[in-house]
C-alpha cells in the first residue's frame, strides 16, 4: 500500500476550520447615523394588522403575518385629492383624506394570505372596532353589498359607530385575489366618510388584478 501524503491532514484541518467558521455568533453593533425623521417621538401605535379586536380568534387571524409583498399586487387609480402616504411593512398603501373642516380619514390597504377567517370574522372584527355587537352568519347577506369590477368580486360594508364622539364611520371592502385577501378600509368622522363614499366606490372600480 502506498504511503498517505502528509498534506492530507493539513487539508482536513483547513477544511474543518472553514466549516467551524460557518458558526457565526451574533454581536451587538454600535454606530452613529444622521438624524432620521421616523425615530422621532411619535406615539407608538399598533400597525394595521394588530388593530383592536373583539375576540382572540378573530384578532389572531387578523394578525397573521403580512403577505404578498413579493407577489403580484393589485393596482388602482386614487382620486386626486387623496394624499398617498409612504408604504409600511404592514400596509400596501395608505391614503389620507381631508375634509373641508380639516378633519381627516384614513384609508388603509392591506393584504393577507388565505381568507383571514372569512367575511363574517372580518366583518365582526371591524364592527368590534366601532364598538358594534357582532352579527351572525345569517345577517351577513344583508350587511354586505357585492360588486364585480375588473373580474374581481368585491364585498363592501358600511358601518357607523354612533357611540363615538364625533361619530365614526367605516367603509370596508374585502377583495379575494388568488390565495390572498386584500382589505380596503376607510375610517374617519361620519360626515367626511359619508361625503367620500361615492369617491370610495368609484375608486374600487379602478382596482385591477395584474
Amino acid at each position, binding site marked *: 500500500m502506498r504511503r498517505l501524503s502528509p498534506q*492530507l491532514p493539513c487539508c482536513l484541518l483547513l477544511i474543518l476550520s472553514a466549516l467551524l467558521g460557518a458558526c457565526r455568533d451574533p454581536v451587538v453593533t454600535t454606530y452613529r447615523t444622521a438624524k432620521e425623521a421616523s425615530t422621532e417621538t411619535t406615539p407608538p401605535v399598533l400597525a394595521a394588522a394588530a388593530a383592536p379586536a373583539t375576540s382572540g380568534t378573530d*384578532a389572531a387571524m387578523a394578525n397573521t403575518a403580512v403577505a404578498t409583498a413579493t407577489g403580484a399586487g393589485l393596482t388602482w387609480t386614487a382620486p386626486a385629492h387623496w394624499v398617498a402616504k409612504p408604504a409600511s411593512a404592514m400596509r400596501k398603501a395608505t391614503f389620507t383624506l381631508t375634509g373641508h373642516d380639516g378633519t381627516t380619514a384614513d384609508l388603509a390597504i392591506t393584504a393577507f394570505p388565505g381568507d383571514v377567517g372569512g367575511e363574517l370574522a372580518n366583518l365582526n372584527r371591524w364592527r368590534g372596532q366601532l364598538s358594534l355587537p357582532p352579527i351572525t352568519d345569517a345577517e351577513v347577506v344583508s350587511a354586505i353589498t357585492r360588486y364585480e369590477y375588473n373580474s374581481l368580486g368585491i364585498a363592501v360594508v358600511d358601518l357607523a359607530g354612533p357611540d363615538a364622539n364625533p361619530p365614526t364611520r367605516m367603509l370596508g371592502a374585502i377583495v379575494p385575489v388568488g390565495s390572498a385577501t386584500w382589505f380596503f378600509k376607510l375610517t374617519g368622522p361620519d360626515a367626511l366618510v359619508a361625503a367620500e363614499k361615492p369617491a370610495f366606490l368609484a375608486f374600487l372600480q379602478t382596482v385591477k388584478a395584474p
Partner: protein
Amino acid sequence: MLKIFRPFLDTFVSIKLTVVLIAFSIILVFAATLDQVNLGIWGIQQKWFRTFFVYQDFRGILVPIFPGGYTIGGLLLINLIAAHIRRFKLELKKLGLLLTHFGLIILLVGELLSGIWQEDFYLRLDQGETKNYAESHLHNELAIIDTTDANFDQVVAIPEALLARRGSIQHPKLPFLVTTKAYYPNASLFMREPGGPPSLATTGIGLRAVAAPRPITYKQNENNLPAAYIEFTGSETPPGIFLVSTALGSSQSFQYGGRTWSISLRPQRLYKPFSLTLLKFSHDRYAGTEIPKNFSSRLRLNTTDDQNGREVLVYMNNPLRHAGLTFYQAGFENNDRTTVLQVVRNPSWLLPYVACSLISLGLLGQFGIHLFAFIAKRRRTTAAFAT
C-alpha cells in the same frame, strides 16, 4: 502515528465513500424539496443544507435524523481532495478529468463560502425617498438609539438572536442594563381588554397592548413578527419593562441619565457610506394590455466623492453593482410608487461561474480526447482492412 489513522484516512479516499455521499446528497435534495412545502426556501436552507445535521423535533427534543449539507458537502470535498492527493498523476489524457474535478472543488468551496458570507437585504424606496441603509427580511434587531443630539443618532443594535437567549446585556455605550424578560419569535399583538390578564410591561405601549405567541411561519409569503418584553434597569429610577415588536408602527421613547432614548424592534439594518434616491419607478406594460413588459427603477447613487451623484437604471437582469453589493429589481408596492430592491453581498459570487466554466472545459477536453483517440483508432482499423 500516521499508521493509527491510516484506516481512517483510507476511508476518506475511498470511491465507496464518494458513491455513498452522492446517494446521501440525492436523498438530502429530494427530502428538502418535499419539506419546502412546510418550511419555504429559507427554512429548508437552514434546516437541511446550511447545517451539519438535520434535526427533527420529537416532543420538544431535537434529534439529528440525517447528515446536513455542510457534513455531506464537507466530506465530499475532503474525499475529492484526498483522492487527488493520493492518486495524482499529471497525464495529458487525464487533463480534462483533473479540470472537471478542480471545478467541482471550487463549486463546493464556493457554496460553503456563500453560506458563510452571503447576506441578503431589501431596500424599499418611495418615489423621491433617499436611504443609506438596506433591511434584512430574515433578521431583526433591538435598536436602542440615543436621540439627544440634534444632528445625529447614536445607535446600539442588539441582534434578535441575543434577545432570544433571554439574558442581560450591559453595553459600554448604554447607561442601563438591558434584560429580555420574554421573547416570542412570532407573536400577535392585541389591545388589552378591561379585566384582561396583566401585561408584563410596566411602561410604554405595553400598558395598552399584549403580545400572544404564535407558531413560527416559514411560508415565503408570510413574515414572522417577533415581540419581546425588555427591561431597562440602572442606578437611576428604572424606566421599566417595554413591549417591543416589529408589528408596532413606530419607536417608543424615554428619558434616562439626562438623555432621550428611543427603542424599537426593527429589521436588521445594513448601513453604507453612500445612499440611493428613487427618481422614478416604471412599470411598463405591453401596449393595449395589462401584461407586464418591464420593471425598472431610475435611481441616483450619492457617494461622498461625488456630490451630484450619478443616475443608474436598475431593471430585470440588469442589477447595480456598487461597493461589493448587488442591487436587483425585486418588486414594487404601493401602486407603483415604491420600488423594492434586493441587496446581496456575496464576495464569492464569481466562484460558481468559474467552477462551471472549468467543469465544462474539463468535460469538453476529456470527451474530446476520447473522441479523437477513437477516431484515430478507427482510421487505423479502416486503413488496416483496406490494405
